[in-house]
């Protein structure tokens, strides 16, 4: 047990306590295992990596058979049971066949029975929350597998949820819950900093051709320099993202930009405040890119401003639609976000006088929560779409098939989507809705010189 723990601790910094607890519980196959352990924590806290390494060490040092599987892969119970049995009792080879849970338990009893004493079995299941969607008997049986098979067996469930989310109507047997806490800021910095040697070697390799840069790089890239960089990096990113693998990925990407002025010789490697001024902008724009993993070819990656400008504004301006299609899109947006009974008032010149009653005034008193732009688009018929289209378009156009085909173009571009009646467009019973946001349509309106806000009930 001690040997397992001490071999894992260098691999997983800041997880000493968790490793020790696991070691105490399942570190020794000659002692009784608990029947089930539930390991939970946010993504990127090392649940899977830690368990995998632990199981591997156990299998190597002791007489333990291990199985590690991901519940996402098991879309039927049968697949899961066969994977489990295959890794726990590998002798069977191709003849392996498990029909149901009973079969699985019995085969496990039978196959594993005549083996030596002190044989341990460890099963780890990733994404255990998926077990809830599988057959109702999977989770209870897994939790009681030790009692049912009478082997020294432990099931480790890994998930992001607290265990209370698993309770069903009749309850479950007891498990040991372990929480892997999210790393705090200091720990995150320590973990990110632990790959310094690797990063440095990578950089040196990268500049192997360029002698001058190589020298600067060798001199400048020290542990301190790297830690300073990480400190600056975390000051921007930590508030939005605490997922260590994600941070690691982005930190490596941004390092080359940070290093750039040093390599050019314009800024000294110890002048942190000037380096900060240099990096602050790119870091902020990289923040908008986090989780997206937009991979750019090498030459473009330098130019971070290019990536930055993928905002809604650019997208709307770069969308090359025909003139009428843009108006159709605006009309669709208006149809989606205005009530049909308001159309007359909005689009007809002589719509008559509005009677004001206290009731209607109160009903119109809008709060942001009740605005249709926040509640989502409503559906509309094609007739209404065309009517609004003709009302907002100043010139007269004929209702040709060219015009109608643009509706289907918009559907293909996923700017509109069918809610119902996809099959019977010709009858006019099909209903559509507009999928774009307010900001996007405002930009489109700007391009064609049309004030969309003026025609939205929300903003009156």
């Amino acid at each position, binding site marked *: 047990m001690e040997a397992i723990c001490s071999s894992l601790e260098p691999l997983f910094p800041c997880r000493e306590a968790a490793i020790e*607890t696991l070691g*105490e*519980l399942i570190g020794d196959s*000659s*002692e*009784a295992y*608990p*029947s089930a352990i539930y390991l939970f*924590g*946010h993504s990127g806290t090392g649940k899977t990596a830690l368990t995998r390494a632990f199981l591997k060490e156990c299998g190597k040092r002791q007489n333990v058979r291990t199985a590690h599987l991901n519940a996402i892969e098991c879309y039927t119970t049968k697949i899961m049971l066969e994977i489990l049995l295959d890794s726990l009792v590998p002798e069977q080879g191709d003849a392996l066949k498990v029909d*149901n*849970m*009973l079969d699985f*338990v019995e085969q496990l*009893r039978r196959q594993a*029975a005549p083996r030596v004493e002190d044989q341990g079995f460890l099963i780890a299941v990733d994404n255990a*929350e998926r077990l809830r*969607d599988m*057959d109702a*008997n999977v989770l209870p*049986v897994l939790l009681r597998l*030790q009692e*049912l*098979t*009478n*082997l*020294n067996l432990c099931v480790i469930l890994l998930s*992001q*949820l*607290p265990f*209370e*989310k698993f309770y069903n109507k*009749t*309850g479950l*047997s*007891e*498990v*040991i819950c372990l*929480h892997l*806490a*999210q790393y*705090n*800021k200091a720990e995150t910095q320590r973990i990110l900093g632990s790959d310094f040697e690797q990063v440095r070697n990578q950089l040196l390799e990268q500049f192997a051709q360029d002698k001058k840069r190589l020298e600067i790089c060798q001199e400048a890239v020290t542990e301190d320099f790297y830690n300073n960089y990480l400190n600056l990096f975390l000051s921007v990113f*930590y*508030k*939005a*993202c*605490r997922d260590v693998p994600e941070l690691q990925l982005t930190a490596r990407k941004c390092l080359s930009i940070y290093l750039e002025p040093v390599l050019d010789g314009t800024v000294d490697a110890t002048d942190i405040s000037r380096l900060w001024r240099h990096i602050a902008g790119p870091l*902020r724009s990289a*923040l*908008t890119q*986090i*989780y997206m993993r937009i991979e750019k070819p090498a030459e473009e990656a330098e130019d971070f401003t290019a990536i930055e400008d993928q905002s809604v504004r650019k997208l709307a301006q770069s969308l090359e639609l025909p003139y009428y299609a843009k108006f159709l899109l605006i009309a669709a947006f208006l149809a989606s976000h205005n009530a049909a009974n308001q159309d007359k008032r909005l689009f007809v010149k002589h719509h008559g006088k509005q009677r004001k009653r206290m009731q209607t005034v109160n009903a119109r008193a809008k709060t*942001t*929560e009740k605005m249709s732009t*926040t*509640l*989502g688009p409503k559906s509309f018929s094609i007739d209404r779409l065309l009517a609004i289209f003709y009302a907002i378009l100043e010139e007269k156009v004929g209702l040709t098939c060219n015009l109608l085909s643009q509706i289907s173009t918009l559907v293909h571009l996923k700017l509109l989507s069918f809610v119902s009646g996809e099959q019977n467009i010709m009858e006019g019973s099909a209903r559509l*809705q507009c999928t774009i*946001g307010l900001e996007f349509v405002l930009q489109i309106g700007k391009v064609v010189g049309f004030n969309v806000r003026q025609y939205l009930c929300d903003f009156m």
Partner: protein
Amino acid sequence: MPEADRELVSIRRFLKERLQRDYTTLRGYAEERSNVRLLLQRTAEMGESNSLLLIGPRGSGKTTLINSVLADLLPNKSFGENTLIVHLDGNLHTDDRVALKSITVQMQLENAADGKVFGSFAENLAFLLQCLKSGGKNSKCVVFILEEFDLFCAHHNQTLLYNLFDVSQSAQAPICVLGVTCRLDVIELLEKRVKSRFSHRQVFLFPSSQRFEEYVDLCKDLLSLPTGNSLLLAAERIYNLQNIQSGALYFSRNHFDSGEYGFSPRLRDAWNKQICKVLATQQARSILQSLHDFDISEAYLKNFLFRLVAHLRPLSPHITAEKMAAVGSQFEGDDKIELLCGLSVLELCLIIAIKHHSEIYDRDPFNFEIIYARFSKFAKVSTTMQAVERSIVLKAFEHLRIAELIMPLSGGAGGGVGKVQKEFEMHKLALTYGQIQHCVQRYQALPTEVAQWAQSSLI
């Protein structure tokens, strides 16, 4: 390894094994136990058929009760040789066909039943019982143990239950049906024709909540080392278990065997004295009291003690009140608060925005747009949350959903809501305001303005 260490390892092994694998020792419930025992005895000796339901919450010792009664009766010759035990589990035997096959196997009648074609389920079962009868002068009796009895009620037409109860009512081969369940309303699940054949003998097991002293004694009992004599007695009892004539009742094989262990009187006395001393302290008692308040079942206590015992190592060879406090605190903590504290500041801000929305609109559901509007109002005046792009906020919102801190209204992923864009899909909050409040207080290095915003929705 020095002597002291070896002793400690053996103590740890012993305690762990006894906590985890002692399937036959029942404490308390003397009356219920004698009730079941009498019933089984009568079935075996007089050939009376009967049926009984054992009902009690999870971890209250229903299965242990049956096991312990069996362990008591097995040395008894008239019982041991005359009885077959058929063990069925609702989780494993998911339909009657599987169950019947398993019954055949467990009664060791595969050969007899092989090649026969049965018209109905009842015919098949009758044949199996007939086989038993034909053998000797008087037939063997069969004890059916149905674990998770409520799940058998969901089987098609309740054929298995109907036939079992029917046999137990009529004067056929003597059988005893023991149902084990944790559903109190299980009788309501039975069909009328099944219900009328059931003997309506129910035994309820409820751990009593009043007796804290007993709880402490139980704890002491589970932690202390027994004398050599009692070890031998227990070992003999375990040895008898091997006589069980059943293919499915496997608890005997890996049952904790006290015969393997022996402790010197010096070691035992020292250990037991230490345990007594620790359990007498105020700190230990208050921890046990709070455990007792959470859950009075023995299984819960065993879970706690298992973790406590696992902590024993050569460097800290004794159970102390401090260790109990350390393990106990893990049982008391709220997992959701732990998870909340692991969120990023941005995600916590969203949670706070959701909390304000829920407070103002009386827990109305919300979508991303509503929360984003509220959040961006705050972000505008705050220094930390400025310049956070909408897409990042959306990602944070999705993370909350994955962690099931907020739940979509129309259950499950894409439950007929594929048409709604994710920004507009309605969610509800799966947290209490207290949990959020708690997290805001505990969160490390939370910006002051966020903490203030959490207190009041005014910006």
